[in-house]
């Protein structure tokens, strides 16, 4: 089966489609979004830890 909705570009047909999501035919793009997701999780955790350390100092 072919892959739907290649990146960049609009949907052309549902005919013979299996994977139907954005960028499904571009593994590099999927890896890119995966890395962005990981970066968001790491940044948020680091940011929360930083806020906690500042609270520690400010509460003394």
């Amino acid at each position, binding site marked *: *089966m072919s*892959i739907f909705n290649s990146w960049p570009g609009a949907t052309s047909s549902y005919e013979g*489609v*299996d*994977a*139907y*999501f954005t960028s*499904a035919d571009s*593994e590099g793009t*999927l*890896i890119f979004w*995966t890395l962005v*997701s*990981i970066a968001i*999780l790491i940044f948020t*955790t*680091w940011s*929360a*830890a930083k*806020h*906690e350390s500042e*609270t*520690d100092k*400010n*509460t*003394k």
Partner: protein
Amino acid sequence: MTLEQLSSYVIAQSATVAEGWYYIMTGLMVAIHVGFLMYEVGASRMQNAVSSGVKNLLAFAFMIPTFWLFGWYIYLAFPHGLVPMDMEGYGVPWNVSMGPMLSDQLTGVFWAAFTLFACTTASVFSGAVIERIRISSFVFLAVLLGSVCWNLGASWGWHFDGWLVTKFGYHDVAAAGVVHMIAGWFAFGVILNLGPRVGRYNDDGSMNELEGHDLRFSFVGLLMIIVGFFGFLGACLIWPGLPALDMQEVTTWTQIYGAPATLSSFAYNTLMGLAGGMIGAFWMSKGNPFWMMSGGLAGIFSCASGLDIWYPGLAFVLGTVGGIIIIPANDLLHKIFKVDDPVGAVAVHGVAGIWGVLAMGIFASGYPGASDAIPAVSFYGQFVGCITMFAVGFIPGYGVSFVMKMMGWLRVPDHVQQAGIDKAELGLRATNY
């Protein structure tokens, strides 16, 4: 209608209804998290109630993407031990299998149900550490538990090809060991390093009760957890005849190992175990409603390993025993280790989980495996499973939290605890009355 049309219709209906079942069970499991949030907020003192709730919300939010990133892959790839199977990319986040496929309606909803199982393990851990763990540290540890440790245990003992199942006949259909033991003993490992809340212990070693600010929240929360567990347990069953598992000849539900099961067996034994646990804890605690509700949960976990096969009367007895033992177990853990487990999570999940796994070996020894590849249930097999689940939970929980403690990244400093975490960190208060 031609035979081909009828066949196409039946296949389409079967796949779509199966998909719908897991979708609805996933939604129902959200009630577990509503329940844990309410329970822990109620069990926290007013000055820390908001931060306790934030912790629960973040556990939920972080578990979902991390389970997508690596949790699901770990479950699928490690049934044979610590070396991953070659799945040709299946299950890694940049593979098309981890997005919507028209040829595969089920992976997405299975992933969703397992994600909510993972969130449940994190919520179990969450209650044990309220009022003194740093939120960022909690998130990291929750991800370790829910998207790594639990998945390994599930891959080994909650998978038709897991080594505990195929070599030892380990039988744990509703996850007494795989979820509750791992989460409970992971929590124990962490609280050994985290230390008690300020004011919990006196210098002479005697213990003070630090009462939560609103018992009503805890009551409703515990009941909500029970509501959500019907979703959890419903999602533990495999829809009849799913072609992907080559079970076309089976006309009823199967449990996760592939043997026939029914929703009725789950309904009988969940309710009977719940009632037994409540009554046992009611008697043991001399009417303490907090323990009575926790006993209800422990009663369900006491029956969880054999939820597919228990006689309901036996399930009631197992639940009663579970409800009774968690109270002295909780007292003993506090007395010996001087830990602080404000909601009794280690006893309710860790100890009742042990009882549930071993009860299977005591009362259902010789029960046949689902196929020739799976040995019959034995006490030895359940005991090996028990040790394994304890290790998968306790060792990483203790080891990683020890390193975090050395780094100064685990505990809210005592002066911040005394000031109140809500005010100091969030600038909020739980209520205005």
